[in-house]
């Protein structure tokens, strides 16, 4: 399965060049999820945030994270990150004992070196060089891609708790995982919805970026990518390359109507050579 996904260049996208060939389906699924969120998940999470005291919410987060230790250690090892595996194991032993069954993150408290780091098989595949494949919005689970969806399946299969927890405990864990995650996203997602024009596109971009961030943080980064912010006034340096003004241009453009613009160079067509820079994927890692 992994090999099939490996085809094509590693599409770690930092720009809008997210590969989304089934966008109409994804948009529909996104709306269904959004409706379910509005009706159920969000109200439950809001109530949870209001009713449950903060320290208790934190304990829930800590326990859930502690329970993920086997999957995290496994994937750190698969990624060849011995140090990361050691951190996860140390956290587990400290937090399960001194931290009272994982309720308190005593290991990570004020100690960035033992801070929690999430790992999963999707990240492992990425470290192995598997591209993310088409973007996917999963029913109820939300934003993903083909690689991370495959990763999820492996994570469930490789988690010892899948086989040891009884049905009730497993259900409780799943519900708490969703509520815990959604609660932490209440404010950020509200902000995104308010400040974006196309909520779907904004969330897609957020998913891809934060996923890339996680992958780079975990792996001994092969070099971070930063989008190229082509300098606005660079155009002045390339006067010779300027395209003729488009027909819609009202001559040499009337006086700018704003103090800010009046200090800027006249707006004109950027030269072709710079166009290449607009795609962040082409950015060389440092």
């Amino acid at each position, binding site marked *: 399965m992994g090999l099939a996904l490996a085809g094509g260049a590693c599409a770690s996208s930092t*720009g*809008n060049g997210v590969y989304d060939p089934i966008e109409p389906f994804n948009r529909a699924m996104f709306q269904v999820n959004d409706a379910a969120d509005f009706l159920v998940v969000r109200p439950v999470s809001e109530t949870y945030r209001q009713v449950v005291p903060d320290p208790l919410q934190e304990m829930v987060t800590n326990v859930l994270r502690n329970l993920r230790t086997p999957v995290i250690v496994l994937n750190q090892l698969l990624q060849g990150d011995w140090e990361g595996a050691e951190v996860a194991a140390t956290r587990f032993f400290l937090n399960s004992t001194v931290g009272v069954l994982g309720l308190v993150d005593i290991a990570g408290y004020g100690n960035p070196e033992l801070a929690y780091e999430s790992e999963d098989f999707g990240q492992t595949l990425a470290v192995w060089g598997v591209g993310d494949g088409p973007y996917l919005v999963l029913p109820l689970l939300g934003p993903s891609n083909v690689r991370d969806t495959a990763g999820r399946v492996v994570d469930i299969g490789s988690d010892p708790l899948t086989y040891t927890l009884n049905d009730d405990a497993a259900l409780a864990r799943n519900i708490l995982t969703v509520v815990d995650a959604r609660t932490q996203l209440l404010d950020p997602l509200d902000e995104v919805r308010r400040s974006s024009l196309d909520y779907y596109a*904004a969330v897609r971009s957020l998913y891809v970026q934060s996923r890339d961030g996680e992958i780079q943080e975990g792996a001994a980064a092969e070099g971070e990518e930063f989008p190229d912010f082509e300098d*606005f006034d660079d155009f002045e*340096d390339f006067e010779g390359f300027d395209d003729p003004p488009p027909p819609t241009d009202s001559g040499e453009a009337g006086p700018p109507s704003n103090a800010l613009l009046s*200090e800027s160079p006249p707006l004109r067509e950027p030269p072709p050579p710079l166009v290449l820079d607009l795609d962040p994927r082409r950015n060389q890692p440092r």
Partner: protein
Amino acid sequence: MKLLPPGAAAALFAAGLALSPFASRAADAAGAERFIAALGDEVVSTLQRPDLTLEEAETQFRGVFRTNFDIPTIGQFSLGRYWRVASPTEREEFLLLFEEMIVETYARRFTEYSGQSFRVTGSREISERDVLVSTSIINADGQLVVVIDWRVRQRETGYQIIDVVVEQVSMGVTQRSDFNAVIQRGGGKVEVLLQALREQVQTAQQDG
């Protein structure tokens, strides 16, 4: 935002090409850190006024935004490949609406201030002229709220912010994704985005 005369800029650029050691002169990370620290102090001291109204907050924010953010560069980036397609009038209106949208969206935050402080935690050069300055926003009770990285560009005229990265998510990249989706779904017309921005700005103003 004072710009060099075009001739001087071109001359500098040519000199840079000719003398590669000069061209690869590293961005000044310490200077960028000082720039962000000073800017943060300035903003926090404004916010500590308890009687700050939304109107005042907007004025303050607009001032800070215009002086310290390179709006044309950010706007051009977030329009992506459609910048080339846009007519000069469309570009001009886009930059105005873009500024307006940011001010309307974020000025409100200024009134929600509740004792957060911020600390510069480090910086690194990410290109020859850009430095990423990392900061931690800290609660009144000393807890880390969020990590924000500021991408600062160094020019002869000083420093300006060209991107804000919140927990690994770049505002510029997100906005570009957002804007491009609107244009694509509008049949590739920049005017569709302008219309959406006009509405967004209007709604935000009414809410305020």
